[in-house]
């Protein structure tokens, strides 16, 4: 069984944004929009995260136009699997939280 991992918020929103191919700035805008302005990925943080996610094979850069440095990325099958696992974990967190706070669980 693979090690259970909890994604950081930045990783989570990057993966989510890349279900549709996007470039760096597009990811920032999408994360901000999805979270109603709450999650703002800073450039340095995003750049580092994109590189690590590529190394892990969770996302891939798409072949860009010649001469353009603007890279687009897309999520991979592996990344999609990680995202699905995380969704299950988050669901558990929410269900447990609600149950305890509503007094259904102690």
């Amino acid at each position, binding site marked *: 069984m693979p090690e259970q991992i909890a994604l950081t918020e930045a990783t989570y929103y990057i993966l989510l944004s890349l279900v549709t191919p996007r*470039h760096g700035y597009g990811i920032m805008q999408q994360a901000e929009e999805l979270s109603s302005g709450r999650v703002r990925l800073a450039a340095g943080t995003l750049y580092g995260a994109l590189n690590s996610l590529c190394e892990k094979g969770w996302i891939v850069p798409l072949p860009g136009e010649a001469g353009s440095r603007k890279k687009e990325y897309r999520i991979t099958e592996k990344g999609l699997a990680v995202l699905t696992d995380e969704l299950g974990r988050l669901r558990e967190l929410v269900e447990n939280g609600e149950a305890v706070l509503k007094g259904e669980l102690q």
Partner: protein
Amino acid sequence: MSERKTVRRWFWVWEFEKEERWLNTMALEGWTLDKVGFCKFEFIRTEGGAYTVRLEMREKDADYTAFMEETGAECIGRVVSWNYYRKKAELGAFDLFSDLDSRITHLDRIGKALLAIGLANIAIGIANTFNVGHFGWINLLCACLLMYGLGRIHGKKESLKLERELRE
């Protein structure tokens, strides 16, 4: 020709946050950083608070610079390994890091640079003390200072790591 002024000021490496605060206070007062040199800051007259200024230690990386420009930031210049950026306030908030992990990575990078230069100074200092015997103490003094800096950076990093155990 817009109004310009040059300020000479020294900041220790471990004071980079103080340096950044100072540059942003200047920007709020209508003096936006326009050029950097060794201990030298050139400002241009702008509206107060028109720009946000950030600095980061990072080796030259054209992809990163292109990435920053894509987000609306502008690279003002580079001194040793320090890069200075600014972004128009009207284009939105400007931060380089938005989580603890990337702040820790940045401090790690600074720490490694200090350690490398510090160790080099110790080696040169010892070699000079035994061989030439005159100015080795200067290198050893430099090494002490760099190690002090390393300690300061390490302290900042450790407090972020403690916080990291509780939140992102």
